[in-house]
């Protein structure tokens, strides 16, 4: 019983300390910034998930629209002007300030015209 209470407290602390979140596959992914890794010369900010998975974010968001052929127009209507195409269905938006990356990603995701929206993650990859 004590263990359960302890686990609950630790989880609660994480929830209280998680300073951002984004959406993926309809789930809320809470993240905390690794402020000790913040470097003014580096455009990448680092965060970690609840499971301690570390990743970086830049000033870019990847978006997929429900209607791919109208996606550029959709994003223009939402006042995004710096948009490039990554593929037939995926687009890359550059925003002015990385500070707002998660907030903007969430707002995009909550738009009914959007299928996915999350930061352009920078994740360590391993050769196997």
């Amino acid at each position, binding site marked *: 019983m004590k263990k359960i209470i302890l686990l609950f407290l630790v989880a609660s602390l994480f929830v209280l300390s998680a300073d951002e979140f984004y959406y*993926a*596959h309809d789930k809320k992914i809470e993240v905390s910034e690794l402020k000790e890794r913040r470097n003014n010369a580096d455009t990448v900010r680092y965060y970690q*998930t*609840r*499971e301690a*998975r570390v*990743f*970086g974010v*830049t000033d*870019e968001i*990847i978006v*997929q629209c429900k209607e791919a052929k109208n996606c550029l127009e959709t994003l223009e209507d939402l006042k995004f002007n710096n948009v490039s195409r*990554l*593929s*037939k*269905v*995926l687009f*890359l938006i550059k925003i002015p300030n990385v500070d707002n990356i998660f907030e903007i990603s969430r707002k995009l995701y909550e738009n009914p015209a959007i*299928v*996915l929206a*999350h930061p*352009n*993650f*920078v*994740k*360590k*990859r*391993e*050769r*196997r």
Partner: protein
Amino acid sequence: MTVLACSGCEDSTTVQVADPNTSGNEISAEAPEAPVETPEIPKAPEVSTEAPVTPDNSIEIPEIPKEYNDTPEENPLSLQDEPYYRYAWHINPDKSALTDQEYQIDKNADIHLKTAWETTRGSQVKIAIIDSGFDIHHEDLASSVIAAHDVDNNSSDVSDDDYDFSHGSACAGLIVAPINQKGIIGIAPEAQLIVIKQWSYSDADTIRGFEYAKEQGAQVINCSWGSGQVSQAVEAELKSLYDAGITVVFSSGNEHRDLDEEGYHDESEVPWVIGVSASGEDNDVTWYSNYGSQIDILAPGGDSLDSLGILTLDKMGYSGDDGQKDLVNNNYTFVSGTSFSAPIVTGVVALMYSVNPDLTPKQVREILIGTTEKVGGSELYDEDGFETYRAYGKIDADRAVAKAMKTKTIIY
């Protein structure tokens, strides 16, 4: 010394060396973890597969068009002309060149390629490989490369940055090294190769790499790497490739990790790709392979530590590594890891496409997992043919290519 396929490698560091006792080697020797005892194999859980495994789903045997029939008679060089074919236990049924060596190689450890090669060697198939760099001037790779692109810098310079082991070349050689009286033979020695250097870690660049492969006409893409946290956007890109008829192959990793664990979502687990773990010289799953309900198949990757490993390309002329085992010259090396299992599957997929270019990725997967060798013993596998650590078993190239020839794609 065996190179354990960069398990745990940092972005710019050296390769993890399986034998920590080698001296005088400039490669940083990070001692590997002690071998994990093979756990008692529990009954494999029921798993939901994308498509049910049907051992025999042939519809009818189509007549094979003449252009698919690139028989070896047209190639004057034979397998025996390749100087190191005799050490390639993963594809050579004859292990006699290694019987007096210290390594124990099971006589069935290869992928059964003999009959498949009598039918095809992969001509007219384009294969892409995305990796950290390539030595495209290597004597056993140069003639196969038809396109080279560095995504991160938008250039054609795909050379390795600052490591001495060319991971990309090692993977590429296993797939396409031609029959040219040099070195080794790839699984699909007559296929064409598109090499894509992409190592910036950014999702956007990852997607650009895949898009380049698609634009160049790749039918199969090899990815011997992973992040353990694939994003929704990259998954969407992999789905888009799947829908476009392109098969993507990922290696599962070398940490003996249960990929089903919460919070870990690897590229090799994505439903739209083929996830590959490694089999060893003993013809069973290796101790280091990652595993999980979404991994599909085993292919030889070498068992590391005291074993021989898989013979492939080394950076030309590089003499710092001791992976030659006193058997081959410095342009070649023995390696281990799931990095090298994925290219073997990629090569077999290329052979399948060469005899039946209309196969869908779904059919490719069904054929591969429906024609495997049940290594470890068939009694270990559940009613769907799956086992926790061994997935659907070890790839069998002869059976996979034969089934590919028989499979008809119905277009609605």
